[in-house]
């Protein structure tokens, strides 16, 4: 479709000078916005709002059979993953070992305490899985051969659903478990 003939008197059209002025302002706004975004996320990250994954050598990776955050998924015997479950530590914190396999998490239901730091170590025995705790920002990939570790504190008692959110096969949608957050004992 081509330009229609002017029905009214010729319009004052946009000029190069006008456009360039606004262009520069817009470019400045866009750049400032991008930098501000990065700073804001960085701040939220440093302040610990997000449970961050501990990489190689981080706390919790001094586990038996775990080297540089890696573990052999065919040989979980001899590692803490041979007995998945919740461990109560001497200092009152808790450690949870989870093994994901198509199509369930082991252990099935986890009971943790509200208000204490809980460190999770999760690995997969077969393919990629996801570990997503509903209504929280806990959402990590579970990869065979790799251990995902992070520490979080549950504030409110109550049940939470754990959903596998990475496609793992025909039964993927049925791969669900529960975390039950228990009120602290008086």
């Amino acid at each position: 479709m081509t330009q229609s003939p002017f029905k009214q008197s010729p319009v004052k059209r946009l000029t190069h000078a006008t456009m360039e002025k606004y262009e520069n302002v817009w470019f400045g706004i866009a750049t400032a916005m991008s930098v501000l975004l990065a700073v804001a996320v960085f701040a939220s990250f440093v302040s610990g709002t997000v449970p961050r994954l501990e990489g190689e050598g981080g706390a919790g990776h001094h586990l038996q059979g775990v080297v540089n955050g890696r573990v052999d998924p065919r040989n979980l015997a001899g590692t803490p993953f041979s007995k998945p479950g919740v461990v109560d530590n001497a200092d009152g914190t808790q450690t949870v070992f989870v093994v994901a396999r198509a199509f369930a998490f082991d252990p099935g239901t986890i009971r943790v305490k509200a208000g204490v730091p809980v460190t999770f170590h999760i690995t997969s025995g077969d393919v990629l899985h996801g570990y997503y705790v509903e209504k929280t920002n806990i959402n990590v990939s579970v990869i065979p051969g790799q251990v995902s570790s992070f520490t979080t504190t549950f504030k409110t008692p109550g049940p939470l659903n754990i959903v596998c959110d990475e496609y793992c096969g025909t039964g993927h949608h049925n791969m669900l478990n529960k975390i039950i957050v228990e009120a602290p004992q008086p």
Partner: protein
Amino acid sequence: MTVSPPYDTPAPQRTLEPDAYRARVAPAIGDAAYLASLKKVTQYYVATAFIALFIGVLLGPLQAFNYAGINVYENPILKALLKSYYQGLSLHGVLNALVFTQFFISGWLLYLPTRDMGARINMKFAWGTYIMMTAGLLIAAVPLLLNKATLLYTFYPPMEGHWAFYVGATIMVAASLLVAGQVVLTWVGWKKQNPGQVTPLVTFMSVSLWMMWLVCSLGLVAEALLVLLPWVFGLRPGVDPLIAKTLFWWTGHAIVYFWLLPAYISWYAFLPKQAGGRIVSEPLARLTFVMFLLNSTPVGIHHQYADPNISNTWKMIHMFLTFLVAIPSLLTAFSIAGSLEDAARARGGRGLFGMLTHLPWKDPVVVGQILAMVSFIGGGAGGIITASFAFSPVIHNTAWIPGHFHITVGTAVTQTFMAIAFWLVPHLTGKRLVAPKVALASMWLWFIGMMFFAVGMHWEGLLGVPRRALISAVALPIYKEGYMHSQIPMALTGISGVILLLAGLSFFYVLFATLLSPRVDDAEAATPLPYSETISPAGRSLRGASPLVRATEPLLALWVVAFALVALMYGPVLMRLTQNASLVPGCNYYTTVQSEVGCNEQR
């Protein structure tokens, strides 16, 4: 190397040719047989692309119904065709996102720069790459159709598919690299023949895009050749899923810009003419494409915030670079809005918003592209949220993600390509668009359908519904209780499936009826390439060009910088991963018979 401008001499007076503001005319090609062959190979690419999209689109509503809680995959007729929801989803993703885009772009961006430069390319080579790409597609299609490669679009190992899938996909990507090479070399030849000349805008955009693809596809090439193929052929004892995933996203994020930028080319160069306005600024368009060439590749790790054993520092750096990619997109938004305003005013529009009514709202080519841009506003905003390290865990792998990419690639890209087809097919074939009113309706339906889908899926995602899951078949009460509050978004998603089916059927009716109709026009005369006038042109001689034009012209040097950047941003990460490689055996959990599944322990 490109001809470098004489920076050491005093800045020359900017003397643009008086006709630089006028719309460009494609250089005439005297050889009719050559032109016919060039148009034909483009037509083959485009037609193959839309056939793939047709099948992919027909599978779409099945997925939408699943997210409305309706499981149609138990239907006996469907069961005979598709073994599972996951097979349907694999086909939907691969056909729409990989095959459609790859074929359309290879045709569109072989044709445009070739015509723009008035170049004579080797047609045997061009046909050879088309045949190679199609062969790759067919090889990969067999295991997909037989449920032997139900790996979804990402094909994350150690989920193991039939070797033919990996071989076919590799051949397809390799063919696109040959198209890229042909275009880049043709441009290098043009530069030699035209020393001191500014590369015409459309060629500039096309060449920088192909250069970007050559940088970003390295990840996928490395994944296929070094990781996946040695593994499926048993040459390696196993596969490191994290290395494979990292290489995948090296390509996998930048690939979205490989899809998007061909739409940008249409928005920048052709839409102004189609709407009745002018290109705002050619130098700015060049800057945008250079920013994408440099900045769209080294950002893929923002897809891996949730992955262990990649340092948080690298994730942060990639996040920051991702945010910077928003800048060229925002520049584009400015530029296109300016072109449309110029068009509306030239057509007699007045006032702040009142002028909008003066745009050609009856032209499906214009309407399709404008609607695509409107939806991309939401897509871009969602993308910034998705790329944020802090927000990502809330929506990572939830239904939000498909909601997001259906209004980016599914609308901004796909709908633009659809709208382009409305003039490109007549331009290539000399046939006339059948039923323009149906074409116009299909554009509105597609947009409205995608809006319903996007709202439904983003909402479901925020309520915790995971992506890529047959949620309509979940038996466990835990799921039911979890998704009870999702009924409204689920209904929206279901309705979107119906609207999109209607949109797809009306679009494909117009497209296929046009393709099958008799030739009536001299295509070159009746539908010329819609070059636009320019408010601020780049000019033709580098000596008289603005500093921005001269700085962006040496594309080969900028390409080297792009390689260096991606090596800097991925080198240390991949080095660390390969030093600690953890090989695991392949598994197959996607066939329906449970007893057949399991991990291959022999390997």
